[in-house]
């Protein structure tokens, strides 16, 4: 992360908003996908920073310090969300079984995708379809998938935030990725062949 270039008054929350507001907002948006919520958390972060700025040691940049505060706010929010909406997913019934026959072989054989991976990964149209497929995932799968694969959080951090074991995380990610692959096969790759 780039160090702060500005030598503006470090104790002024208005300066923090001007210098780091967009960055922090983007950080929250990329994790929560909700404009109002992201803006609220930014407000809380700046106010918490203001109340606690005596505790800021100056050993890190102001931005790093503010991101640290915001991270905690996001984690608190996600935990509350999981608790209040009772987001649980059964470990017993395995939805990935539907993709296999009784002998454990593929029910529908995965196809080779012949598109150029670089071009595909950079394609906005593909991202739109991908995002739509992610939105269709069951809530808890979607939550951990977004944290781990979309935001690139470490597995350990995702487990801590969601209060789940590493094994449970792996199960959820496996289910999410399998459903996504199937969704993309049918909503992107098969469509390409037809057109």
């Amino acid at each position, binding site marked *: 992360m780039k160090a702060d270039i500005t030598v503006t008054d470090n104790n002024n929350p208005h300066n923090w908003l001007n210098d780091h507001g967009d960055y922090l*907002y983007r950080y929250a948006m990329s994790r929560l996908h909700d404009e109002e919520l992201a*803006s609220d958390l930014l*407000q809380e972060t700046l*106010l918490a920073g203001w109340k606690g700025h005596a505790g800021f040691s100056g050993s890190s940049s102001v931005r790093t310090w503010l991101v640290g505060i915001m991270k905690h706010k996001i984690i608190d929010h996600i935990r509350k969300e999981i608790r209040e909406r009772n987001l649980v997913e059964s470990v017993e019934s395995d939805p*990935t079984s539907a993709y296999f026959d009784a002998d454990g072989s593929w029910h529908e054989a*995965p196809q080779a995708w012949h598109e150029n991976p670089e071009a*595909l*990964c950079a394609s906005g149209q593909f991202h739109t379809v991908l995002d739509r497929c992610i939105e269709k995932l069951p809530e808890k799968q979607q939550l951990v998938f977004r944290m781990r694969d979309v935001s690139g959080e470490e597995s350990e951090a995702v487990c801590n935030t969601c209060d789940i074991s590493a094994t449970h995380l*792996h199960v959820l990610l496996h289910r999410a990725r399998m459903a996504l692959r199937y969704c993309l096969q049918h909503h992107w790759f098969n469509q390409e062949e037809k057109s």
Partner: protein
Amino acid sequence: MKHACQEVSRLASDSLDRPLSLLEKLRFHIHLSVCGNCRNYTENMHLIHKATEMMQQTNYGHIRLSREQQQRLHDILHRETGV
């Protein structure tokens, strides 16, 4: 090997999140060497993984606070901190 593809699909996903044990690695690679379906699956999976990472950048890289949001936040800060 019974249930091989089903198990291998799990290993393909797990390998993105944890180091596989030596035994798992062996099973995984031996199976891939004889199973085109699972090779396709693993490749698809890596492509999705990479595309997902890049999606973050395209979908959120340009996001900024609107003028209204900025103004609202400045007002709130002023009210709450007196600065």
